């Protein structure tokens, strides 16, 4: 079963994503900030990380960089979520090794479609 780690400091956003991902058949875990996220990843690397950029303590870019710096975690797909819709942010995120970049507010269908592509279902369903 595909696993996803949702990282955001906004509880309601976490809640909505959690619902969507569960429904899409992911094993869902959540984290409220960068540190918690890295702890979760270290505990058990997920297939996918939905990572908010603007967070207290360590922000999304920081987490992304850390993950990419570890060879053991190269398989992890990272999708950045950001409320800052500027191109510079996007470039920066992709340069740091993120696989995709989603701007808030987003279309849930569109995001699900992109995630499906990024992490295809293993059982082919």
């Amino acid at each position: 079963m595909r696993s996803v780690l949702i990282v955001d400091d906004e509880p309601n956003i976490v809640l909505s994503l959690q619902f969507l991902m569960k429904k899409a058949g992911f094993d869902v875990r959540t984290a409220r900030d960068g540190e918690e996220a890295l702890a979760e990843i270290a505990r058990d690397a997920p297939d996918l990380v939905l990572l908010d950029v603007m967070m207290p303590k360590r922000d999304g870019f920081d987490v992304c960089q850390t993950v990419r710096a570890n060879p053991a975690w190269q398989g992890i797909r990272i999708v950045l979520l950001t409320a800052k819709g500027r191109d510079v942010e996007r470039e920066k995120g992709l340069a740091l090794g993120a696989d995709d970049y989603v701007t808030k507010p987003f279309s849930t269908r569109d995001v699900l479609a992109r995630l499906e592509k990024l992490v295809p279902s293993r059982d082919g369903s």
Partner: protein
Amino acid sequence: MLSGVTIIGAAFLYLCILFAIAYYGDKRADQGRSLIANPYIYALSIAVYCTSWTFYGSAGRAVSTGVGFLPIYIGPTLTFILGWYLIRKIVRISKVNRITSIADFIASRYGKSAYLGGLVTVIAVVGVLPYISLQLKAITISFGVLVQYPAVTMPIQSSAVPLMHDTAFFVALIMAAFAILFGTRHIDASEHHEGMVAAIAFESVIKLIAFLVGGIAVTYWIYDGFGDIFARAAASPELARLFTIDTSRGAMTSWIALTVLAMGAVLVLPRQFQVLVVENVDERHVRKAIWLFPLYLLLINIFVLPIAFAGILHFPKGAVDPDTFVLTVAMAEKYQAIALIVFLGGLSAATGMIIVETIALSTMVCNDLVMPLLLRFAGARLAKRRDLTGLLLAIRRGAIVVVILLGYAYVRLIGESYALVTIGLVSFVAAMQFVPAIVGGVLWKGATRLGAIAGLTAGFAVWLYTLLFPSLARSGWMSESFIIDGLFGWAFLKPYALFGLTGLDAISHATFWTLVVNMGLYVGVSLVTGQSIIERSQANQFVDIFNTAQRGERIWRGRATIADLRGLLLRFIGEERAEAAFKRFERIHDRRLPDTQPADAEIVAYCERQLAGAIGASSARIMVASVLREEMHDIDGVMQILDEASQLVVYSRRLETKSRELEAATDELRAANERLKELDKLKDDFVSTVSHELRTPLTSIRSFSEIVQDNPDLDVEQRNEFLRIVVSESERLTRLINDILDLAKMEAGQGDWVMVELAPGVIIEQAIAATSSLFARDNVALEVDIATDLPRVFADADRMTQVVVNLLANAVKFRNAVNGRVALKAYTEKGWLRVDISDNGPGIPEQDHERIFERFQQAGDTLTSKPTGTGLGLPISRQIVRHFGGEVWVSSRPGEDTGFSFNIPPAAASPARLQPSIAGERAIAAPP
């Protein structure tokens, strides 16, 4: 026996020696081995100050006023000791400008004004006449007394004898001849008369020795020294009064007036200016003269009192004129040789004065009176004459004869009715009129030509009215009625009690009024009038003579050749001296001067200076200008050039100022630009932050809406939960938008404020009520302590409630997780309302204390993962409180508590009330 022939023979012999010395002195000067180039000769020549007035008159004055003769010698001593800087300055200025006389000096200072030079000359001649007459009188009387030897009788008054039998007339003629021989043998390019100075110094030695010899004879031969003669005098009731100094008001004023007069006279009497300034060959000599000259004065006064006492003891009945005591006491004791020596001493004192004074006056008359007039009215004819030296000499010689004969006329008309001293003092007061223009001229740049003219004219007029006319009247040449009743019968115009000023002797009275009028107009008119370009440049040069280096460059657009200048110089100072002057220039500047070469500024200035030595600065200027093909009327052109030059200076100064201003403006612009860039960045950040803050609730709203839309199979409970989130996030979005708009309005100073005077207690209670549900929900305890005597404040009730609610909500959010406690305390502090709201939360690190008042900034560790506030509460609260004239601040001890405080001034002192139109978002009042 002392026959008339012996006396006249001795006198002539003496005069011949004098002439020999002068001749030798001139010869040495021509050879370049100056006889007088030492400070001792210089100091002795200054002693020309001591005339026959000193020689005979001091004893006379001592008889009438005791030590009252002293101010005349104390004054110069004071001038030399206190005014040495001034003397040095005047000497330096005169050297640089080749000043030839006091008239030249004053004219030069006030823009080379020919008019002023003429005015000074007239005042000097008229003012000094009495003084010259005094010398003639002294020689005549002393001769008349001595020729009677061994009998001691007073000669008959000269006005009573016909002209051809009047000794004084012949004395005058001899003096004139002598002065001509001394002073006008040739016109010198340099203004120095070295031979004359040598002779004058010699005369000073003779008169000092003669007086000392006379004094010693009286004191030690006739009596037994000072002690004896003073004891005898003290024994005589008539003499005893001379020991005491008269301390009445009139006498003291007289002392002061005489001292002031003498202080000025030693500097500005034409002959004093001549020896002290014009004839000075080395500025350093002034230094030594500062003490040598006062020493001379001291020596010549030692025996004045003994001679006066001896005279009264010898001739008690007043049969003998006290002015002759120095001579008659020796005669009475049959000291033949002594008497002759004393006579020669008196003669030397008188001749010295007459020679120097007439030379000085004739130079002035020639350079500052006749030449300018000739140039003006006969310039064309003058221009045709090849050699003008003869003309110049003739003018000077004529001037000497005229001045001396006028002096004689004065003796004959008036002199008999006055004592020597009084006549001298009349001249002192006249000379005194030059002091403001000279002293002011070298110290004050603002003094103008018109000021000097006004002061001099008025001072001179008052002098005529208060001293000269009355003396004419007293001698019967005018009606005396104006003395007794005042002019036109107006009492306030009485010449001895002008405007009702009484209680002063005539001299003090005149001194006071002439100086008051003179200085008043000099300063007053100077203040209200402006200076021409040349005046300004002269004023600067005079006042700053020690500060500025000589200006080498002059702007001159002459079209003359060297030959023109050579011709000009030659005409005024003679071929030989003109050639010598040009050779000197070639040697000094190491350059050849071919006749065809155009004259440059340097040689023009040099020639003007050479010429100035001969005919004075103002005439020299006119002549040089005329030869430069500029003709007389082209002086305007020269002025224009000067004007343009000074305009250029003004422009370049303006440019400098402008470029400095531009630089400053550029700096300001750069700073403003930096600031703008910063603001721009802040704005970008703000927009980006606002966008982020808005997108966040929007994200939740869209997500849940889509979830609900896409999942019709959701169970009711979940569906309701999601919808509730949508609603709450919508509310959050609305709140956020409101807050942003609110803050933006306040920051722009446009908020809607309903400012009234209100009781803060009520507001605080309302805020507590509004937040009670918050406290209840989170089970947080609130301790309230509101003082009953809170000051009324001038505020907007809703906004103030908003502040308290914000701070209370904040406290709830950041309180301690367990046993959450919040305390509100409202009280009066130094008349201001002060509210403290604290919680027992984790506290805020020091470095965040300012940051939390910025928009969308929240302190890191919060109790919940994300506080529900908009992040604008504190910035808004701060805006509001500042609008009320107060301040919000945080005082937190991390780990212990978080305290927010704000204060608001009492209604009476509220700045918001004073300036209701200005939303006080920037009106920050410091906490008391």
